[in-house]
């Protein structure tokens, strides 16, 4: 490493001056919006808003940005990273170099244009001990990253001389051999096409309504409606339903297209890299993302699919993690979309898990319970319909449908316990196989509700340190005896693992 670079970072340093410009742009969306309306609507009254916004920016935001920039200083020595900031109250943050787990360099579109990079320095501790340098120039960011790694490897050598077992952090270079999974552009588009996220339906609605405002066609439609206002009243129900249906189809189509574009943006050049003790996920077109997941933090692994994806033979792999670093999301897609064999291969490389072909089914009495549970949800609606004697046939059909749903719920549920690993299968529309290692289980519970006791059933609840409750860890409605056996078995396995750990 160049001695000059070492020297520049060993003195207190400011962030890159262009940060000022960046923060100004980021902090003034209100200005843009009011400018837009002021110009677009050509309304004199609106200009007052623009002037007020300008004044607010001049008096409050600009000095704040400037002061924040002036008071933010950082320094990297061979033992620690020191960051001083704070306008009114001084904060002095000190991060020992050895505690640094990971350095993330990220760039969004605007930052890319300005040639700036955001440096996130993650430690194993909680969120409080993270350091974010927002922003430094791209060259500086890279030299910071290499510098910290260099200092780390220096202290690492010292530590290793002291005690050989230390396996905390080893400097590794990301070579291409470590790539576990990659996605081609075509695969990413396919992934987007198969996703169908409900959130995008809302966005679709929003865009559809906006298009209607601006679109020239709208005038024709309006004038058509105005001319034929008398005829519309005579239209039959079927035509109206068809009209509404076509609008719905358009909205779904729009949201589907946006979902594809959005997915392509997020997962562009997706790469899953295996480094010592951790996994690295890289992706992104406009916003580059770089996520690091230490193996230790992974609590559960899940193979996910929806009915559509399953039809085409595609699955995804999701990792659920304990809370760490600045991420509170708690889950990461390690493999967004791939054939089952590829996913098995990746799982095999990460951890030696063998996904069973057949699962133990839960008790058949579960169908009854699930049906009653679903039906009680709709009781108020049923009551109204029956009271007014509206469509009793529909109620009956709906009940049959609910029973079928309950049956599917039972059919798709299964569990398998083998060799310290528990596999749980569940889901109707979104299907999951959840894999939990016994040594990640914190607390085990058997729960018997009032109704379960009457049927001789019980649920086994496993609690891990995973942040999200997205992945179920409940074996629902199994025989009471089976639940007790599993309870004891898991207990024994945990104890065996402890003993092995102690002997080591």
């Amino acid at each position, binding site marked *: 490493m160049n001695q000059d670079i070492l020297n520049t970072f060993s003195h207190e340093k400011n962030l890159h001056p262009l940060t000022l410009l960046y923060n100004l742009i980021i902090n003034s969306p209100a200005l843009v919006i009011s400018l837009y309306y002021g110009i677009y609507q050509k309304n004199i009254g609106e200009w007052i808003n623009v002037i007020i916004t300008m004044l607010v920016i001049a008096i409050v935001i600009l000095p704040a940005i400037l002061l924040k920039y002036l008071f933010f200083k950082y320094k990297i020595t061979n033992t620690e990273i020191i960051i001083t900031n704070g306008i009114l109250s001084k904060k002095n943050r000190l991060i020992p170099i050895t505690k640094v787990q990971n350095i993330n360099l990220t760039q969004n579109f605007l930052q890319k244009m300005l040639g700036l990079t955001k440096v996130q320095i993650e430690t194993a501790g909680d969120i409080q001990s993270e350091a974010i340098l927002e922003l430094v120039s791209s060259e500086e960011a890279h030299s910071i990253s290499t510098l910290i790694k260099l200092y780390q490897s220096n202290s690492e050598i010292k530590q290793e001389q002291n005690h050989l077992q230390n396996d905390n952090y080893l400097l590794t270079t990301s070579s291409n051999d470590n790539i576990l999974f990659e996605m081609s552009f075509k695969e990413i588009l396919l992934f987007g096409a198969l996703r169908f996220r409900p959130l995008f339906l809302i966005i679709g609605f929003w865009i559809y309504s906006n298009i209607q405002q601006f679109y020239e066609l709208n005038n024709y439609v309006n004038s058509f409606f105005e001319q034929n206002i008398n005829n519309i009243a005579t239209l039959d129900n079927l035509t109206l339903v068809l009209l509404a249906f076509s609008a719905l189809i358009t909205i779904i189509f729009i949201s589907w297209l946006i979902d594809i574009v959005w997915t392509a943006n997020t997962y562009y050049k997706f790469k899953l890299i295996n480094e010592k003790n951790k996994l690295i996920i890289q992706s992104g077109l406009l916003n580059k993302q770089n996520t690091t997941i230490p193996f230790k933090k992974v609590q559960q692994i899940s193979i996910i699919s929806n009915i559509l994806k399953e039809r085409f033979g595609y699955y995804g792999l999701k990792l659920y993690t304990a809370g760490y670093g600045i991420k509170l999301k708690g889950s990461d897609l390690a493999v967004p979309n791939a054939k089952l064999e590829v996913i098995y291969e990746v799982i095999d490389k990460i951890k030696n898990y063998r996904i069973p072909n057949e699962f133990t089914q839960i008790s058949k009495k579960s169908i009854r319970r699930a049906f009653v549970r679903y039906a009680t949800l709709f009781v108020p609606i049923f009551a109204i319909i029956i009271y007014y004697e509206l469509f009793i046939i529909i109620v009956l059909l709906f009940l049959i449908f609910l029973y079928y749903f309950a049956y599917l719920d039972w059919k798709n549920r299964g569990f398998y316990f083998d060799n310290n690993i528990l596999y749980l299968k569940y889901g109707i529309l979104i299907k999951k196989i959840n894999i939990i290692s016994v040594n990640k289980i914190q607390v085990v519970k*058997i729960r018997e509700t009032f109704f379960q006791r009457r049927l001789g059933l019980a649920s086994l609840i496993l609690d891990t340190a995973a942040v999200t409750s997205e992945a179920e860890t409940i074996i629902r409605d199994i025989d009471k005896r089976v639940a007790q056996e599993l309870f004891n078995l898991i207990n024994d396995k945990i104890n065996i693992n402890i003993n092995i750990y102690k002997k080591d």
Partner: protein
Amino acid sequence: MYKLDTTVKIIWTANYLMKFLYYSIIVLIIDFLFLHSTYVSIPFKTGIISLILICIGIIFSLVVPTIAFKYWEFEVKDNEIILQYGIINRIKTLIPYSKIQHIDVQQSIIERIYGLSRLILYTAGTKGADIVIPGLPIEYAEQLRDSLKDITANESL
């Protein structure tokens, strides 16, 4: 299987009574301020609802602790603690010592009068994983805490 100390029933009763009193006071305030105005008017006199609530509370806090006590059991084993409790939903919990992050012994004012305490076991689990064992004599709880201290998780997550 160990039982809890029988005096825990008194503590539970007191806790339930206080809770019901607290809610009935809130109901009384709402009753007084809003339910007898010109817009909304209920057919009861002010305070009747609170009175009913207190009556239910007294019956509840006399009956429930006895039943709850009957089902509350715990077992301290070589490698784990097993709890069993619940009236309507019965729950059996297993906490391996190696998963305990840290241990607290807590006492409320009423518990202090009777010389009881609660042992709270914190694990790293995220779904209701702080396990509370109520109604332990303070000496026993502290002894248990000290003996568990050495065998709890020494690995950070």
